[in-house]
């Protein structure tokens, strides 16, 4: 069986913890030999996913916990984010129309577009009433 290594970090669901989350994920990605550009992609994708969870699933409530789990095997570097908030299905997501949003002075909806572009695979499942988002980068 392939060797699997796991790292975990739990923080309060507050945007002030985003930089710690980014650094946690980036330092492990670096350790596994990803180049700077890929590390930057992973850093941003995780930031966007956590921002969505903090804002939309937990309404910026720092008493809620956000758990970030990294699993690494021979093929993939995977980041799992689990929350108990309102679900969001990446499959039903549509690319935002920037021109229209600017005209309507609307922002948002950009994070998922970035996650899908920056990572090799993004999956979303509901398990035991929990939303499980998994994002991965191939190691080769």
């Amino acid at each position, binding site marked *: 069986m392939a060797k699997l290594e796991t790292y975990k970090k739990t923080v309060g669901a507050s945007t002030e913890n*985003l930089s710690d989350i980014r650094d946690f994920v980036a330092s492990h990605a670096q350790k596994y030999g990803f180049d700077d550009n890929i590390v930057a992609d992973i850093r941003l994708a995780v930031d966007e996913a956590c921002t969505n969870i903090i804002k939309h699933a937990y309404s910026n409530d720092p008493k809620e916990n956000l758990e970030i789990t990294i699993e690494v095997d021979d093929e993939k570097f995977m980041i799992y984010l689990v929350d108990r908030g309102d679900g969001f299905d990446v499959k039903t997501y549509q690319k935002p129309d*920037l021109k229209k949003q600017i005209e309507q002075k609307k*922002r948002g909806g950009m*994070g998922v577009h*970035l996650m899908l572009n920056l990572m090799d695979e993004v999956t979303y499942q509901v398990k035991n009433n929990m939303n499980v988002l998994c994002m991965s980068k191939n190691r080769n």
Partner: protein
Amino acid sequence: MKTFNISHRTKSGLEVLDLQGELDAHTASQLEDALKNLIHNNKSNIIVNFQELDYIASAGLGVFMAYIEDVRSNGGDIKLTNMNDKVYNVFDLLGFPTLYDIMQDEMQAIEKFLEEEG
């Protein structure tokens, strides 16, 4: 927690905001306050210099989405300059280069503003 700083200066009669550090969903409100303050004071020729900005997330781009129409309807613009490659890549992925003036150097933005005024 990483730092984000924003400072304001004027150059050739234009407003310049210098960004430094990491701009994410936590620090974006500082940029929002600075832009709102300029707009409130009827300043609408604005350059945002990214020279010292190391990182941006979509919450930072969202601030520019929310205020560009206000500035343009006052006859001005927000021009973005001196981004590093990683920061530019985020703007590019979200389609900003066709809708915003993004320049390599602050001087180019100043010249473009002067042309537009002339």
